[in-house]
C-alpha cells in the first residue's frame, strides 16, 4: 500500500466524502450530542475508536468467514452483530480497566451501536473492496471526519443560543439549517484530489 494511496483515502474520508456532511451517515448522534463542545468531542473520539475496531473486525469476519462459506448475503446481519458485541465489549473493558475513560465516553457507547456511520463504514469497506490496511485507514479517518464535523457544528450551536431567529425554527430546524451551511462549505473540497 503506497503512501499516496493512504493519503488519498484519508483526505477523501475526512474532507471530500465526509461521512456526515456529504454522505449523510451518522446524522442522529451528530444532531443529538452536539449541543455542548465537550460532549461533542467525547462522542467524536468514541466514534473514531469504534469505527477503527469495526472496520478491522468486519473485514476479518467478511474475509475469513462469510466469503469462504459463500454467505455474503448475511453481511448486514453479521456486521451489526459484530458492532453490537464490539460496543458491549469495549464498554465492559473500559469500565474495568480504564474507569476514567469510561466515565468520559461511557454514555456515548450504547448510542454508537445505532450510529449508521459505523455500519456504513463496514459496508463501504466491503463495497469498495479495500484490503485490511485500507479498511482500517478508512475507518479511522472516517471517524476523524466525524469528529471534525461534530466539533465544528457544536461550536456553531453554542453561539446560536444568543442568536435571534424565528420562533418556529427553535431547536432542531435551525440546527439543521446551520448544519446545511457547514455542508455547503464542505462542498468546496469536492474537487480536491491527490495523485
Amino acid at each position, binding site marked *: 500500500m503506497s503512501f499516496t494511496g493512504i493519503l488519498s483515502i484519508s483526505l477523501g474520508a475526512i474532507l471530500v466524502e465526509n461521512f456526515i*456532511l*456529504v*454522505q*449523510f*451517515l*451518522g*446524522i*442522529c448522534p451528530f*444532531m443529538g450530542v452536539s449541543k455542548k463542545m465537550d460532549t461533542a468531542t467525547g462522542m467524536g473520539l468514541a466514534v473514531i475508536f469504534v469505527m477503527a475496531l469495526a472496520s478491522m473486525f468486519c473485514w476479518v469476519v467478511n474475509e475469513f468467514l462469510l466469503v469462504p462459506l459463500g454467505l455474503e*448475503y*448475511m*453481511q*448486514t*446481519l453479521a456486521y*451489526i*452483530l459484530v458492532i*453490537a*458485541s464490539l460496543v458491549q465489549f469495549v464498554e465492559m473493558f473500559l469500565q474495568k480497566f480504564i474507569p476514567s475513560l469510561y466515565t468520559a465516553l461511557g454514555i456515548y457507547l450504547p448510542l454508537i*451501536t*445505532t*450510529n*449508521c456511520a*459505523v*455500519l*456504513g463504514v463496514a*459496508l*463501504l469497506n466491503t*463495497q469498495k473492496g479495500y484490503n485490511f490496511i485500507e479498511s482500517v485507514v478508512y475507518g479511522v479517518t472516517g471517524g476523524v471526519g466525524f469528529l471534525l464535523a461534530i466539533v465544528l457544528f457544536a461550536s456553531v450551536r453554542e453561539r446560536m443560543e444568543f442568536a435571534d431567529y*424565528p*420562533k*418556529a*425554527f*427553535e*431547536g*432542531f*430546524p*435551525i*440546527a*439543521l*439549517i446551520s*448544519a*446545511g*451551511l457547514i*455542508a*455547503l462549505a464542505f*462542498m468546496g473540497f469536492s474537487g480536491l484530489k491527490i495523485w
Partner: protein
Amino acid sequence: MNVKKQFKEGLITQNPVLVQLLGMCSTMAITTTLFNGLGMGLSVLIILTCCNIVIALLRKVIPSKIRIAAYVVVIAGFVTIVDLIIQAFVPALSSSLGVFIPLIVVNCIILGRAEAFASKNSVGASALDGIFQGLGYTVVLVIMCVIREFLGKGTFGGGILNGGAGIQIFPEEYGALLMILPFGGFLTLGCLIAFVQWALRRAENKKKEEVEK
C-alpha cells in the same frame, strides 16, 4: 386499540421524522427523486410492520437484558430479506438506493418503535403502529422528494413518470442544483420541521384559548 388515534399520531402528532426526529440520515440522503422516496418509504413501512409484529409476539419471551441485541437481529434479518427481494425484482431501486437499504438496520425509527411500542403492546396494535408510522415516514420522504426534485431539477416524478425522466415543469438549467446536494436536504428538512412546530403550537394555543373561554 384506537385506530384513529394511532393513525393521527403516525402521520402528524407523533410523526417519526418531523416530531420524533428519528431516521434522519435516509430522509435527507435519498430524497432526490420521487422513485427513491417511494421505494425507501415502502421498504421501511414493510420492514417496520414485520419487525413490530415479530417483536410484539416475542415480547414475553425475550429477557429485557438482551432485548436490544435480539431486536437488532430480527431487524437485520428482515432488512436483508427485503434487500434481496429488491435486488431480485426491482434492481433499478437497488442500484439507486445503494448502501442505504442495508443501513435501514440502524434506522432509529425501527429500533425506536420496537423499544417504545412493540415491546409493550399487543400484536394487532403493533402491526397498526408499524403501518401508520411507516406511512408517516413515507409521506415525509415523498414531500421532501417532490420539493427537492422540483426546485433542483424542475421535474416531478423522476424515476417513475415519463419513462424515468420525470415530467419537466420548467427547464432543467433554471433549477437550483443546490437543492439536490446535501445542503438542500438539510434546508428542506429544517423548514419542514419548523413548519410542523409552528402548526402544532398554533393548534395547541387554540385549544388553550378555548379552554380558557
